[in-house]
């Protein structure tokens, strides 16, 4: 498939910053993996049609005891339609329903987590990217998309980023927050280099494959409480392996991790770096400086704190440019994009979190 590299039909800069909302964590999904068949070679089609491969295995043991399971109840469609599986549903429920001006798609198909068989994973990733472009991005100018890759084939991943990364509505490379590998390892560097040369950010998001430090705890509530730590571990790996020293303009966006951990994370890494710098002398700046310049964090699920504590949090972070609003549509714990933060924050700050910070983060928005 060739990729059109013209500007998007819908220019974000035409939006009114007083009311605009860029939602950086939205999950589209297919009805079934068979939706990808038109984009797969015949060899790989056979595994789905003839040999019975039916989709990515769900690794975690949990069910979600929310009112709508893992889906926000009022976003569960009637009948056999799969949630978040059509542009029409997303327009009605998210863009119109929640007043979202621009939605960034992250999918629900973590091919980098497939434990082996990288050739098939890479074919599926390419097929998914083509399906996403044709069925979502090119049907709705308010959507922005991801390049899905197979991280354990970094050269192949970089080729895929170069193949579709030039599409005007593709703004990021998506990596699932795995917990058995470290993305800072130079082995994965070609992925980050490819993202940077295509003006894309790299986005991290956990999935059912993400373990806590205790593996899969006994209850979902334990797992869901603890998984933000996995993104902190991946960020630690990126920082201390010099990814941001090598690619100073690269942004890494952390999704679905909340934001109240950021001061602790900065202080902890700085304190370690002051004493142990000589182990990682290729890191040339305090980790907190890399975090402020290179890391951006989606708000959802945001801890319920007071206005005073929120303002203190930003003061401790030393930045009001790191947080970007997100809903996590269509999942059970989706936040409202306009009621997710404490009441009474200044209009200037809200415009940053809802709009301007994302505009400054994604070069291709």
């Amino acid at each position, binding site marked *: 498939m060739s990729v059109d590299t013209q500007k998007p039909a819908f220019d974000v800069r035409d939006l009114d910053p007083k009311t605009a909302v860029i939602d950086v964590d939205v999950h589209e999904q297919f009805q079934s993996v068979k939706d990808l068949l038109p984009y797969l070679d015949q060899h790989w089609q056979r595994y789905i049609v003839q040999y019975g491969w039916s989709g990515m295995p769900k690794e975690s043991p949990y069910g979600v005891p929310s009112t709508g399971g893992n889906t926000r109840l009022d976003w569960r469609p009637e009948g056999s339609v799969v949630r978040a599986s059509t542009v029409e549903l997303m327009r009605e429920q998210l863009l119109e329903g929640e007043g979202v001006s621009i939605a960034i798609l992250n999918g629900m198909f973590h091919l980098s987590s497939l434990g082996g068989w990288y050739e098939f994973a890479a074919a599926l990733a390419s097929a998914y990217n083509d399906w996403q472009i044709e069925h979502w991005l090119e049907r709705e100018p308010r959507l922005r998309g991801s390049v899905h890759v197979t991280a354990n084939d970094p050269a192949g991943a970089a080729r895929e980023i170069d193949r579709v990364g030039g599409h005007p509505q593709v703004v990021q490379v998506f990596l699932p927050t795995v917990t058995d590998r470290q993305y800072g390892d130079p082995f994965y560097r070609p992925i980050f280099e490819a993202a940077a040369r295509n003006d894309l950010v790299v986005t991290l998001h956990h999935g059912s494959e993400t373990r806590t430090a205790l593996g899969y705890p006994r209850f979902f509530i334990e797992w869901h409480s603890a998984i933000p730590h996995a993104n902190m571990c991946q960020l630690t790996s990126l920082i201390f392996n*010099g990814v941001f020293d090598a690619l100073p303009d690269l942004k890494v966006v952390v999704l679905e991790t909340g934001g109240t951990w950021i001061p602790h994370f900065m202080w902890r890494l700085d304190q370690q770096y002051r*004493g142990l710098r*000589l182990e990682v*002398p290729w890191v040339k700046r305090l980790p907190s400086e890399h975090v402020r310049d290179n890391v951006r964090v989606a708000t959802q699920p945001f801890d319920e704190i007071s206005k005073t504590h929120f303002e203190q949090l930003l003061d401790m972070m030393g930045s009001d440019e790191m947080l970007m609003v997100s809903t996590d549509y269509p999942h059970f714990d989706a936040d409202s994009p306009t009621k997710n933060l404490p009441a009474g924050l200044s209009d200037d700050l809200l415009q940053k979190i809802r709009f301007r910070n994302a505009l400054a983060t994604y070069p291709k928005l």
Partner: protein
Amino acid sequence: MFPSAELGPGEVREATIDGIAVVVVRTAAGELRALRDICPHQGARLSKGRLEAAVDGPGVGVYELSADRVILRCPWHGYEFDVETGRCLADPGSRVRTYPVTVEDGVIVVERG
């Protein structure tokens, strides 16, 4: 303060000047440097630490010992201070005061500046 001959290359020695604790070092190249003998972190005596060549890293996993940059490393948490500037390598905003040091008639002299 004390005879210059008593401080060999790579050695560290504590001293006081007008009641102020200072640490005098002689680098492997023979240069004398003097710094305040208190780590700005938690007050450890830097004179109990180690004088080392600074480590640089031109790439991930690549270590190079500096030929001319010398650090005094705190005995407690390992913070590294460039003996030339007194600045912490990890956080140049944090620094130890440095003092001019000379040798007069074979004796090391530290000036309060």
